[in-house]
Structures are given as structure tokens and as C-alpha cells.
């Protein structure tokens, strides 16, 4: 028993994913999400000027990005998505003023890669932000997200962040 717990074996998780994928061909492999988001974080991390203008003292990295084991389309017949976990990110500074912009970038980036009927919740990791509740509420209010993306200044910021060639 104890031995099994200590040696939590990653093979077990991989096996689970494969089962879920075979049952539902529309499920998204978490590794795909890592691939999609890795490019985004690469931009965040490798463009210091952008990083400063965008996030001031706030940074994020792949290592602290929380991704659920598997994302399943909302209407999947295989599994109830009721408890679908959100994608989380961790600002390094508790008072990061740009957390909502980073979340917005994540949302736009994911939207480009996922079929439109996927439902993605994005949150800061629990305890990682001073205004956690308010940041999460804003990031998951689709009316606010839609309005933000129609705001030319915010849109430009998001586009610069996502499509910057400054690498």
C-alpha cells in the first residue's frame, strides 16, 4: 500500500488517458494542450520587453500551469463533464494586475485550437492571487470577455502577446 503511494507511477495516468481517448474520439489529450500553451508561455518568457509591458512583475511558466487530466467535449456521451476541472495558471506575484489579461490571452489562444463547442474554464491556481475570486469571475464571464476583445487597446495587447514575432 504505502509503497504504491510513494511510487505514484506516471504510467498509470497515461493508461487512463488512453482509455478515455479510445472511448471518445473527440476528447483532447492534455499533451496537446501543453503543446498549444507552451508556445504561448515561450512568448511570455522569451520576450522580456513584452513581458514587462504586459505583466509588470508577473510571470507564468509551464511548470506551474495546471491542466486537467483530460478535457472532454461538453456533450460527450462517455463521461459527465459536471466536474470538469478548469485550466489554471499561477501568477508569481499575489497582486499581479495583469492576471486577467494573461487569462484572456489563454482563452483566445485555446479558442483558436479547440472546436467551438468546447467549454473551457480558466482560473488562477487556488491561493495564488490576492483577488482570486474577482479575477476568476471576470475571466469566466463571457460577456466581459467578449466586450474586452472588442476593446481596441486590449485587443492589441492580446494580439501582441499571442502573435509577437519578437522571439
Amino acid at each position, binding site marked *: 500500500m504505502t509503497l504504491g503511494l510513494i511510487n505514484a507511477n506516471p504510467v498509470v495516468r497515461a493508461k487512463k488517458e488512453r482509455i478515455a481517448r479510445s472511448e471518445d474520439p473527440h476528447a483532447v489529450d492534455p499533451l496537446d494542450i501543453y503543446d498549444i500553451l507552451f508556445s504561448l508561455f515561450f512568448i511570455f518568457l522569451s520576450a522580456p520587453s513584452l513581458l514587462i509591458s504586459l505583466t509588470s512583475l508577473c510571470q507564468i511558466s509551464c511548470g506551474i500551469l495546471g491542466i486537467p487530466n483530460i478535457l472532454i467535449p461538453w456533450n460527450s456521451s462517455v463521461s459527465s463533464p*459536471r466536474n470538469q476541472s478548469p485550466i489554471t495558471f499561477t501568477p508569481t506575484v499575489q497582486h499581479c494586475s495583469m492576471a486577467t489579461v494573461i487569462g484572456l490571452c489563454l482563452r483566445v489562444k485555446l479558442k483558436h485550437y479547440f472546436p467551438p*463547442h468546447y467549454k473551457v474554464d480558466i482560473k488562477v491556481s487556488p491561493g495564488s492571487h490576492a483577488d482570486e475570486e474577482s479575477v476568476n*469571475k471576470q475571466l469566466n464571464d463571457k*460577456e466581459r470577455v467578449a*466586450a474586452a476583445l472588442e476593446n481596441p487597446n486590449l485587443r492589441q495587447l492580446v494580439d501582441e502577446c499571442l502573435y509577437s514575432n519578437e522571439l
Partner: protein
Amino acid sequence: MELKEIQRLEGHTDRVWSLDWNPATGHAGIPLVFASCSGDKTVRIWEQNLSSGLWACKAVLEETHTRTVRSCAWSPSGKLLATASFDATTAIWENVGGDFECVSTLEGHENEVKSVAWNAAGTLLATCSRDKSVWIWEVLPGNEFECVSVLQGHSQDVKMVKWHPTEDILFSCSYDNNLKVWADEGDSDDWQCIQTLGEPNNGHTSTVWALSFNASGDKMVSCSDDLTLKVWETENTGMQSGGGFAPWRHRCTLTGYHDRTIFSVHWSREGIIASAAADDAIRFFVDDNESQVGGPLYKLLLKKEKGHDMDVNFVQWSPGEKPLLASASDDGTIKVWELIS
């Protein structure tokens, strides 16, 4: 009970946020008409063909709003259409021989206007915005609109405004989790918040997206991001003779039915509550006459899974003898449904 899809309407090129049935249609041989508005910055007018029973797009109202059109509302006479947009303006359109002309533009809100509503007499218009304020406009002759009051009280964006069906009492709901009730207590446009329905009064614990009244106006239902519907009731609608106000109180909470945010709720004249949510489903609830003391007061009549391919943003029952339900979705379509028992 069965929900039959009568028609699926395509035309908008982005999510459809809202729609409004023209209240002056659907009787006396006048074909049912509704307007829909979308993230594609346009408003579309749909009219029923009396012989086929199907709807076709009669007009596209474009090149006026420069951003998403979030909400639309016909005046009670059905002659004017008000449209609220993220471009911070509200436009008033007049139907001139089948052509819709923008006859007035209401400016004043600092940013996105989210909802617009006419009072029962068609003499007042209310708008609300992300700027946290609610504005009341008086309708003057010659398509003039004068702002008579700017109501501050909500601490966050105001999602929706709705007038009481018979009294000049305004209701607003907000991202700040509260519902507020506003009335003109004096003779001189002295609009005040007379009641706040929030968490301390068994209110919602997250964004309140919409509200709707029953036919007699003594009950109201609200829907929220907290995944519940709440029914509220009052003894006496409107102002009492002594100048006092009969407050609204929590009647019951419908919980455990929705999995994601509930964006819209509408109460039919026959007493059926329809709700639209981010789980793509449409649900129907009715008063539970067989309810035991202390049991639930409303029961789920029907749940339509996959009503749309994406979030359902709005539902509304039509006027006319046999109400139909229209729904609007992120998938860019509108559907017209018939509830068959």
C-alpha cells in the same frame, strides 16, 4: 411533454445574444415578428409567413452600431425598436413601411450598454451599462428621448433592466450579485432604490444575469451564475395608498438543475418558466401543485439537452394565443420551438 423544433434560423455570422418578439404581432391575423441581435453588430428582423408558418429574415439593421448589439426591445405598440450596444449607445429604430430607420441615438453611458427596456405604457425607457449605472429616459414627441435620471447603486456592471409588467417600477440585476428595485417616489423624477435583493435576503451568490415576471406581476424569477433560479413574490404590486412599498421577498430557490451559468429565464403567461444556460440545454419548470408543505414549489417539466450546439444565451415566449419559444445561441442560430403536451 415534448419540445418540438419548428425552425432553425441562420443568418447571423456571430453569436446571437438576444431577441425580442414584437408584442403587437401574433394576433388579429398579424404574422409573428421578432428581432434578434448579435456579436456580428447587426440586428435582424424575422417575420412569419402565415401560409408556411415559417420565419424569414425581412431586414438587416446594420452600419449603425460599431460593436456587438447586446440587447433589443420593441416598444409596447411594436412601432419602435430599441437596440443596446457595446459601442456605448442605444439606437431607436422606426418601422417606416417595412424599412427600419434609425431615428434616434441615445448617448451618455461611459461604456458597453447591456440591456434596454420599455415600461408598460411605452413612455419610459431604461438602459444599463458596465459603467454600473442605470439610466431612465422619457419618451418625448418627435422621437426625442430625454434622460430624466441616472441611478447609481450597483457596485459592478448592470446586466439587465426590466420594468414591472403593470407598474412603473424598474428592476435591475448585476455582476455584483444583487437585484435592485427602483421607483419614483415623488412627483418630480425622484427615482430611488427602494429595495436590494441580495445574499442577506436569500439572494444570489454570483452574477444575476436576468429576471422575468409572471403574468399577474406578483412573482418574479431570476437566474444566476450561481447555477440557481430564484422565485420572488410580493403581497401587493406597486406603491400602496399610504406611500409605502410592498417589499419583495424570497419564495424559493430552484437548485441542482443547472450545470453551468444560467443566462436567461422567461415566464410564460401560462405559468411555464423556461431557462437557457451555458450547458446548451433549455429547461422548463412549473408550479408544483402537489407540493408537500416544505417541499419544492416548482418542478422540472422538461429538459431539452443539446437545444443548441453551444451556449444558449436567451429564451423568450412569443405573444399570441399559442405561445412559441424562441432561443438564441453562441452557435449563431435562433430556434423556434413548440412545447407540446
